[in-house]
């Protein structure tokens, strides 16, 4: 009743009821944008978590292989095998640092989702809204690994269906750049 009463003045200009409706529509659009972004982001986060699981499984399997070699070479007394196994164990052990970073980035994405939701709950007139929303869209900047960026892009691609290979490139000379 009240909204109807305020809908239009004699000159046909905008009135409080119409302004309220415009504001509501704006808020609804903001929620729709959030929903679309969140729907895109959730499979990305799931894929990043799956990559962590694969990484830990791969590292554990590798460590088991090297432990067996170490045990066997200890009995046989092969020093070269032992050295190689220790070296490969050190490579495999680094899964902890890599998975820690990946999990931290998933945590950061969840924190951004949470902040985004809080912004929307505060309403469309919240001063920091644009800044907060932009931070969410630019989430990719948090990544520190090429494989995270690749996985992110692959998951967003429409034909994504299979897990993206997440194993790191073969360690070798191409991992070193001298300036």
């Amino acid at each position, binding site marked *: 009743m009240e909204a109807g009463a305020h809908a239009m003045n004699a000159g046909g200009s905008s009135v409080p009821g119409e302004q309220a409706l415009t504001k509501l529509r704006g808020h609804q659009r903001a929620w729709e944008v959030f929903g679309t972004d969140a729907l895109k982001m959730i499979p990305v986060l799931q894929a990043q978590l799956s990559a962590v699981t694969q990484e830990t499984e791969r590292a554990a399997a590798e460590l088991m292989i090297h432990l067996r070699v170490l045990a066997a070479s200890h009995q046989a007394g092969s020093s070269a095998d032992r050295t190689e196994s*220790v*070296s490969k164990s*050190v*490579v*495999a*052990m*680094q*899964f*902890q*640092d*890599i998975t*820690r*970073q990946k999990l931290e980035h998933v945590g950061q994405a969840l924190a951004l989702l949470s902040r985004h939701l809080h912004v929307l709950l505060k309403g469309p007139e919240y001063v920091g809204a644009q800044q907060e929303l932009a931070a969410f869209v630019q989430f990719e900047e948090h990544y*520190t*690994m*090429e494989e995270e960026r690749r996985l992110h892009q692959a998951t967003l691609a429409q034909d994504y269906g299979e897990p993206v290979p997440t194993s*790191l490139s073969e*360690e*070798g*000379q191409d*991992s*070193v*750049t*001298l*300036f």
Partner: protein
Amino acid sequence: MGKTALVVDDSRTMRQMVAFTLTNAGFTVIEAEDGKDAVKKVAGGGKLDIVVTDLNMPEMDGITLIKELRKLASFKFTPILMLTTESAMEKKQEGKAAGATGWIVKPFNPEILLKTIAKVLPV
């Protein structure tokens, strides 16, 4: 006399693995948990032969650390290697501009790390 290395990484396990590799190769290793801690540790003025540092760390990152170290006369020619999961070309360029001697992408292979160090250490 053995050589001394400064290993900077916010991950304790990574520091331990780099230290394990370098200690086995005859280095004396000093560990720091980020750039700020590293600057504090070199303030004593002891001689360091090489620095191996991570890129993304709290308090002070690896690029800032390199810039800080390069300001010191005693670190003008000290080899500084970045050891990081980051492999983006623009980051490498940033490292080079800051004064890094080289860039190694994690996970590192101990033999390759030692070979790289041997290449950059002054004869």
